[in-house]
């Protein structure tokens, strides 16, 4: 055929193919259950610790509500709030409570919000399996992390624990960073600078896996997902060495590094039926979602408190953002 005819043929085929894929995309068979009529998009961003939990929630929610598009970003707690307070996202994930200046920024941006607990988490001190360390006290952790002074682990005075210091941890946009520096170093934001910092916990895990003298901290759930390639270091919060686990985090014996994880929905978003349904879903199936994503579920008290909070939000009462 002549080139012009060929071109027309290509164009027609192209348009057909394109049209088919565009239609075919909506054709998803919902595996069992009735497909609900909920439609819309929910935009979520924030903590990279909470991210996987929300991803698991989104997946399970989508099984029954396939027409709701949910996107989950992981810009870090701080980064998430910046976007949230500008109205760019519907829900902000946070691994620490919202700060005063962030509340101010939200007010300035016309966004009201409230705090919902979604799971519990501990910050795990994690090491490469080749590193000879079993337990560290809070003062030792502080000495290691508050500034760049320590360059060899033997400076910490733990017998047998030597090696060139090579540390991994979250960057400054991370709620985990804020919480850790506050609790271990005594003041939020105070930290050594010579360490491998990344908002992406996966990078930290990969770094630790390959570094024989590597030591780092990140959310316990990330440790759980990689337990076979990393080593957990116990923390002595004053009452002896405790390893983080579901129990020790829930009852608070793993201290001081236990904390709840939050989501902050905006009041405007909650008015939308799909967001409302999603939040209720998270609350209802809280334990299942947490376990699917390898998080520590809420205690029963936390669950009841959370449910009450959700009802308050839905009935339109102004957000009860607690003190930072």
């Amino acid at each position, binding site marked *: 055929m002549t080139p012009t005819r060929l071109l027309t043929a290509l164009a027609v085929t192209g348009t057909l193919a394109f049209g088919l894929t565009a239609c075919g995309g909506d054709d998803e068979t919902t595996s069992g259950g009735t497909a609900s009529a909920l439609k819309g998009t929910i935009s979520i*961003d924030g903590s990279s610790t909470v991210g996987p939990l929300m991803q698991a929630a989104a997946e399970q929610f989508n099984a029954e509500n396939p027409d709701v598009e949910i996107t989950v*970003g*992981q*810009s*870090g707690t701080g*980064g998430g709030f*910046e*976007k949230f307070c*500008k109205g760019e996202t519907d829900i902000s994930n946070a691994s620490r409570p919202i700060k005063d200046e962030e509340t101010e920024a939200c007010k300035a941006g016309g966004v009201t919000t409230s705090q919902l607990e979604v799971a519990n988490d501990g910050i795990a001190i994690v090491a490469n399996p080749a590193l000879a360390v079993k337990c560290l006290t809070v003062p030792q952790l502080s000495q290691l992390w508050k500034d760049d002074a320590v360059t060899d682990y033997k400076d910490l005075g733990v017998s047998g624990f030597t090696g060139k210091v090579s540390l991994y941890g979250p*960057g*400054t*946009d991370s709620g985990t960073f804020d919480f850790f520096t506050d609790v271990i170093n005594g003041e939020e*934001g*105070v*930290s050594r*600078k010579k360490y*491998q*910092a*990344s*908002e*992406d916990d996966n*990078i930290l895990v*990969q*770094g630790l*896996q*390959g*570094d024989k003298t590597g030591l780092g901290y990140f959310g316990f759930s990330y440790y759980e997902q990689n337990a076979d390639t990393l080593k957990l270091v116990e923390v002595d919060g004053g009452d002896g060495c405790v390893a983080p686990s579901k129990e020790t985090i829930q009852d608070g014996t793993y201290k001081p590094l236990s904390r709840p994880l939050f989501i902050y929905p905006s009041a405007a978003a909650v008015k939308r039926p799909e967001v409302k349904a999603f939040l209720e879903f998270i609350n209802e199936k809280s334990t299942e979602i947490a376990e699917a994503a390898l998080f520590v579920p809420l205690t029963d008290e936390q669950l009841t408190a959370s449910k009450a909070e959700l009802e308050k939000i839905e009935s339109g009462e102004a957000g009860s953002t607690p003190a930072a």
Partner: protein
Amino acid sequence: MPSPTTPGGSSAGAPSTGSKLVSGRSRRGEHIIQWLLAAAALVSVATTLAIVVSLLAETILFLQKVPITDFLFGTEWAPTFADPSFGVLPLVAGTLLTTFLAILVAVPLGLGAAIYLSEYATPKVRKTLKPILELLAGIPTVVFGYFALTFVTPLILQDLLGLEVQGFNALSAGLIMGFMVMPTIASLAEDAMSSVPAALREGAYGLGANRMQVSTRVVFPAALSGIVAGVVLGISRAVGETMIVLVAAGSIPNLTANPLDPVATMTAFIASIAKGDAAVGSVAYETLFAVGMLLFVSTLIMNMISIRFVRKFRQAY
């Protein structure tokens, strides 16, 4: 070349009688069409302007907060910390280290392949080899990154060679980047060598030279400007490459010359900051543009050098 005075312009070699056929009363429609076409071509100029403006605006904001000497000559890169440092040298070191390793691989392999294809290979061999090179050139860089991270680092570097490398290291990324860049150098060098007039070769053979002497002492020097253009373009590609280094060398800045260490290049930094998606107006957001500006200017200079060398060996293009 004589060009007609009408706005119809002239393609190369238009006969000088052309102007008679399109006399002063060219149709209005023709004019409009020409302007439309010119507008389309101007889109590319607009793109360049947009790139420069977008980079410049934020870079200026950045330089108002951070002195340029701190930026260009500082040795610590920690822009997001409470007490930040903005020295870009660790990123530049990362780029230079990986680029150097890449060139170490790409230049010998690329030139070797080019000489072989141009001087030694029979037409049948050329027909098989050139598509293979094109295939190598067409593989997405993220795939190269995957290969570097999951095969080269564990199996070649750690197991086979027994090197003390971490999961992320500059060596693996640099070597694989070399294979990625090699087709660029090979293709441009081969073009240059093929353009050397047959007379030069035949003269040399006639004087009793063997193929190696002809290749290295006659063809190669004659094609040198094109070859240099290819190498410079290859360097530029290595400097601008993101995915291979992001995946295999890491994204954590490290001022080092040791290829066994993890490094972050300028490109890897831009990608990882953008992934974290810093908010507009923050200094972190501005660093993205400042580093981007540095990257753009470096590759621009290299590209201009390469284009000048290409002009030297190609007549009109």
